[in-house]
């Protein structure tokens, strides 16, 4: 695979997720303004933080008058699961110069990771892994910046109940289901999925992180038995 083919593959894998991300970005822009954040600051948050659910939470916490330290702590907790993605892609990015690692870490979101994963699981040491992740990250970054800008500038004209946010779980299903080819992987999915539902009440989406950890443990436990 050439660089440009990998870049385009990453972009293409990410595109369906934009169906769900763009309305979310528009709503973020609206919520940020309602929370008393000035328009320019609301737009800049999208490039400085670049983490959808964390930005949403931050705007809501500030709007509710939460202390600044609590807000920073909550952003850290809500993004904790990205450490798992970091560990997961680290071997594939091992030999890259630091500027590539910094760029790809900045772009390492749920969506970009999901878009790159089918290829990375087939070829864990793929020489074009960075172009693939860059293509996916670039597509998401652009969609996110433009949609939050649209939310700030024109407000929400989208009917809230179109259900476009369903595109994200559907894409994750489309990516994960074909990967489940062993009892260990099935166990990881069942335990992580069940725990995510049971722990959904934990603050700042930390349930997602602990549910994923439980899934990892279940997969490794089932996988080590003959």
């Amino acid at each position, binding site marked *: 695979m050439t660089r440009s083919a990998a870049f385009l593959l990453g972009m293409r894998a990410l595109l369906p997720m934009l169906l769900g991300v763009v309305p979310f970005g528009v709503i973020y822009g609206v919520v940020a303004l309602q929370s008393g954040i000035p328009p320019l600051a609301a737009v800049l948050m999208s490039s400085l933080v670049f983490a959808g659910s964390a930005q949403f939470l931050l705007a809501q916490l500030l709007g509710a008058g939460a202390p600044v330290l609590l807000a920073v702590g909550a952003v850290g907790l809500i993004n904790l699961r990205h450490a798992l993605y970091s*560990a997961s892609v680290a071997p594939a990015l091992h030999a890259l110069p630091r500027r590539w690692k910094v760029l790809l870490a900045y772009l390492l979101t749920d969506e970009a990771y999901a878009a790159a994963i089918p290829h990375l699981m087939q070829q864990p040491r793929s020489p074009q892994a960075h172009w693939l992740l860059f293509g996916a990250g670039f597509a998401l970054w652009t969609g996110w910046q433009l949609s939050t800008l649209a939310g700030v500038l024109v407000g929400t004209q989208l009917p809230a109940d179109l259900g476009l946010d369903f595109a994200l779980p559907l894409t994750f299903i489309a*990516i994960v289901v074909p990967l489940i080819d062993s009892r260990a992987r099935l166990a990881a999915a069942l335990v992580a999925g069940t725990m995510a539902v049971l722990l959904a009440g934990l603050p700042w989406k930390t349930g997602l992180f602990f549910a994923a950890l439980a899934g990892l443990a279940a997969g490794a436990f089932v996988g080590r038995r003959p």
Partner: protein
Amino acid sequence: MNWTDWLPLWLACGLLTFAIRYSFIGLEGRYRPPGWFVRWLPYVPIAALTALATPELLLDAGNIQLGADNPRLWAGLVAIAVAARWRNTLLTIAAGFAALGLLRWLGDL
């Protein structure tokens, strides 16, 4: 408040988020992770993405909804079946949306 007054907080949140995402990418090759950690890693894609998807199917405003009146659950199951049979991303998404639309339409009748 001026818009620049918010930038230090955005920078703090951005740097923290970046540090979390850079963590293992930056450490790779400089340390040897424990064996259990290495055995857990291959399951990250499946565990993390399933954890993100399932609450969207099963929860409505924080409550578990397993009934016939939860269209997202049944549309999600259709998507899982289509993904398992055809392994095609766009087809899976189209089937999930079609099922959701149909179930909502039936629910409104």
